[in-house]
């Protein structure tokens, strides 16, 4: 019993440690770009301190001793006695990796080397010794505290302020330097000012003694509104000054509102309502359109994005402070719960069907109530397994940092939609393909700084990793502003590999898709970075295994975007139940566009392809009965289910469309694992089994067969 308890506690430590290590890594990477941020230094220190304490408590002495050494050095940095340098961050990242190795060792993994331990510790000690020899730098924090003695109001809650300061044009002539006001503001707390310079005219129009610059400032301080206003007291009357509290960072019970970009710009007066509505309805990226159409300056958009980030950071800090409101549950327990709910959904379907047949009104209404509760239970159970994709995005920052350094490239990673939630199991399976895609961006996409400069691009390339919900799917995009794909080179290579013949006339999209074909990448081209024995074909296969799809868009010289469409969950989906003869099949509702009845006069054939006349335009369709060799009498009448196959419409001809169905997905046995076109099965209310069609695969196979047929003819 005692042994079991110890094992449980050790397992709990491992879990806690891996979270702490992830947080440590993120904080260190943030610290790299913001080395004076005391909050970040504190966060790093706290993570290391907890690792030490918990490690010692649960019998991981080696980890505790090592963390103790690292913590000593971090303590110096925390007290401004050691500067936060790249070297310090590198060593801390190495220490973090070493602790990870030590954890793996205790878990039966390869032993972590003692030499590496000692090397990191001695380098850290040398750093702290050097700092002591040189004399400690002046403490910025203590200076600020000293300066504020006697003037500081009672220390209240920390608040995040948005300030727009537009001084009077004549401010210089009044003898005031607005920049000094910014410096004064910075003494109140953590302050970032972004200047707007777009209104500075050319030499012919400028009055050199006028001020044309204005600022958006984000300030975090606990000194209160009055202290902030006091800074501007002498210029307030002649300036445009807006001070607004965006969030109370210490209020535990108050949610911080995350505003959309358009809302922030509207509040700031950088865009009017009419233009905002028009751009939003165009479904293009707001910031991009504003800058393109000259409706907003790039600086205003950037500044609003900056506010969004700051508010998000504040919300995260608040959430981690109130983490006591959550509990830790093993994921296998959640899996078991979801499985049980799945069974319940199946039984409930049976119940509804049976009560309907019995025709007892009271029973029917009770069954409907059970149905409603089951649906709620299902949604709640599914939401328990949902985790924000940001937990995975976080690890890419380290990947990008290390790889770009290795390849001598400068790459900035921007993540968007970190809060987008996906089923935990889907996120786990997405990790490897995304790593591969991001590696590809850095290795093949982003050019070296010199090459970029030659092409008049920023020296640093950008990779944007974004996620957003779209119906029952999540769209994940990996965009880089690198060299883009060269369709001629791809085609030449594909011809050389025998994937296509030189005579084939391919569209640009079809050429890009060749990159996803097995055998396109070869061992000769494998580099340390992107070549890990995994080609894009494996990425595609994994995504398809998740019932998702992958699409590549690229523009030579401008960059590449890979879009992944992934279903939210792998356990229960909304399906459309259809019938062929006496057999049932399920089409995932997420890809269904519409259903139409097929009459003989609407059906036609061209080059061996079946076509249906859909409101005047011709849509190719597949006769599912023939395709599945289902047997029975083949006819060209029935219902066509129009599906979205990667942006194109394709029809599936079935006998009957029954209706929508909550589909609890059951995996097929090993015997059927390699069956193409079928992705699983489900049990209907009466116990009948229905196969779930992998419609995207079906469409692709049908298209390939038809292409082959038309080549033969």
């Amino acid at each position, binding site marked *: 019993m005692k042994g079991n308890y110890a094992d449980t506690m050790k397992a709990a430590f491992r879990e806690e440690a891996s979270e702490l290590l992830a947080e440590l890594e993120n904080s260190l990477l943030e610290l790299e*770009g*913001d080395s004076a941020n005391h909050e970040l230094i504190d966060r790093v220190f706290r993570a290391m301190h907890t690792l030490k304490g918990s490690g010692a408590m649960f019998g991981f002495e080696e980890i505790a001793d090592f963390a103790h050494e690292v913590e000593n050095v971090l303590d110096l940095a925390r007290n401004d006695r050691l500067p936060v340098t790249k070297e310090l961050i590198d060593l801390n990242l190495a220490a973090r990796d070493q602790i990870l190795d030590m954890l793996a060792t205790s878990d039966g993994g390869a032993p972590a080397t003692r030499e590496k331990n000692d090397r990191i510790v001695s380098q850290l000690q040398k750093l702290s010794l050097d700092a002591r020899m040189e004399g400690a730098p002046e403490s910025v924090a203590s200076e600020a505290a000293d300066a504020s003695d006697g003037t500081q109001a009672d220390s209240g809650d920390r608040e995040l302020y948005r300030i727009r300061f537009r001084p009077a044009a004549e401010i*210089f002539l009044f003898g005031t*330097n*607005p*920049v000094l006001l*910014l*410096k004064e503001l910075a003494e109140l707390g953590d302050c*970032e*000012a*972004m*200047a707007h*310079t*777009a209104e*500075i*005219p*050319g*030499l*012919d129009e*400028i009055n*050199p*003694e006028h*001020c*044309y*610059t204005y*600022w958006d*400032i984000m300030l975090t301080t606990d000194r209160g509104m009055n202290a902030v206003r006091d800074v501007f007291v002498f210029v307030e009357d002649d300036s445009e000054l807006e001070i607004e509290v965006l969030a109370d960072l210490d209020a535990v019970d108050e949610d911080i509102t995350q505003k959309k970009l358009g809302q922030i710009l509207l509040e700031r007066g950088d865009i009017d309502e009419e233009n905002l509505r028009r751009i939003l309805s165009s479904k293009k990226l707001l910031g991009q359109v504003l800058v393109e159409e000259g409706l907003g300056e*790039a*600086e205003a*958009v*950037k*500044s609003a994005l*900056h506010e969004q980030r700051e508010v998000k950071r504040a919300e995260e800090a608040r959430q981690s402070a109130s983490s006591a409101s959550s509990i830790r549950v093993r994921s296998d327990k959640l899996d078991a719960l979801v499985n049980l709910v799945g069974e319940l959904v199946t039984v409930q379907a049976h119940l509804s069907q049976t009560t309907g047949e019995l025709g007892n009104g009271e029973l029917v209404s009770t069954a409907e109530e059970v149905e409603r509760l089951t649906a709620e239970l299902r949604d709640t159970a599914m939401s328990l397994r949902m985790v924000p994709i940001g937990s995975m995005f976080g690890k890419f920052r380290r990947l990008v940092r290390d790889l770009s350094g290795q390849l001598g490239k400068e790459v900035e990673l921007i993540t968007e939609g970190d809060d987008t939630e996906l089923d935990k199991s889907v996120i786990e399976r997405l990790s490897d393909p995304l790593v591969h895609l991001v590696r590809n961006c850095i290795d093949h996409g982003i050019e070296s700084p010199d090459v970029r*400069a030659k092409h008049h691009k*920023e*020296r640093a390339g950008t990779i944007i990793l974004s996620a957003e919900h779209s119906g029952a799917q999540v769209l994940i995009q990996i965009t880089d502003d690198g060299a883009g794909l060269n369709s001629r080179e791809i085609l030449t290579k594909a011809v050389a590999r025998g994937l296509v013949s030189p005579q084939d006339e391919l569209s640009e999209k079809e050429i890009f898709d060749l990159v996803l074909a097995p055998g396109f990448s070869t061992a000769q081209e494998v580099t340390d970075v992107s070549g890990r024995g995994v080609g894009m074909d494996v990425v595609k296969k994994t995504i398809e295994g998740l019932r998702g799809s992958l699409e590549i868009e690229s523009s030579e010289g401008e960059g590449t975007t890979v879009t992944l469409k992934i279903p939210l969950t792998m356990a229960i989906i909304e399906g459309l139940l259809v019938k062929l003869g006496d057999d049932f099949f399920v089409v995932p509702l997420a890809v269904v566009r519409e259903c139409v009845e097929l009459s003989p006069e609407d059906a036609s054939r061209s080059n061996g392809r079946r076509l249906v006349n859909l409101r005047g335009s011709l849509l190719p369709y597949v006769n599912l009965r023939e395709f599945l060799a289902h047997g029975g009498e083949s006819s060209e009448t029935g219902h066509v289910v129009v599906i979205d196959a990667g942006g194109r419409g394709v029809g599936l001809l079935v006998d009957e469309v029954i209706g929508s169905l909550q589909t609890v997905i059951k995996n097929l046995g090993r015997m059927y694992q390699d069956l193409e076109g079928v992705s699983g099965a489900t049990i209907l209310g009466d116990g009948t089994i229905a196969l779930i069609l992998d419609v995207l695969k079906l469409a692709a196979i049908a298209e390939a067969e038809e292409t082959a047929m038309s080549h033969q003819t």
Partner: protein
Amino acid sequence: MIDIKVGSPKGESRKDRIRLTLSGRLTVNHALEMHGALSEALHETQHLEIKLKKVEETDLSFLQLLLSVRKSAQALGKEATVSGCAEESFQAAAADSGLFGREHGGVEGADILSWLEA
């Protein structure tokens, strides 16, 4: 005190390139003077080279003038470059004003950074 020197590199005509060297206190007190010299030089030449040397003080008005030169040069299809930006007082003024630098100035800042030579 401010010192403005105007000349051209050896072997180049004023029409092709003018080098304008600015020293001393580049502040609003001398903004009119600097504006006059910069305007005249940019109208006369195809490539205006602004060189900062022994700069004692810089303020926002001067930073605005630099951005104004850049805007005019772009509009006229001419070239304007700035060197000597590593001067301590210039760096301090730029950082404090939130004008340049990736962290502060954002898009415009990063763009300007690549324009200004250390």
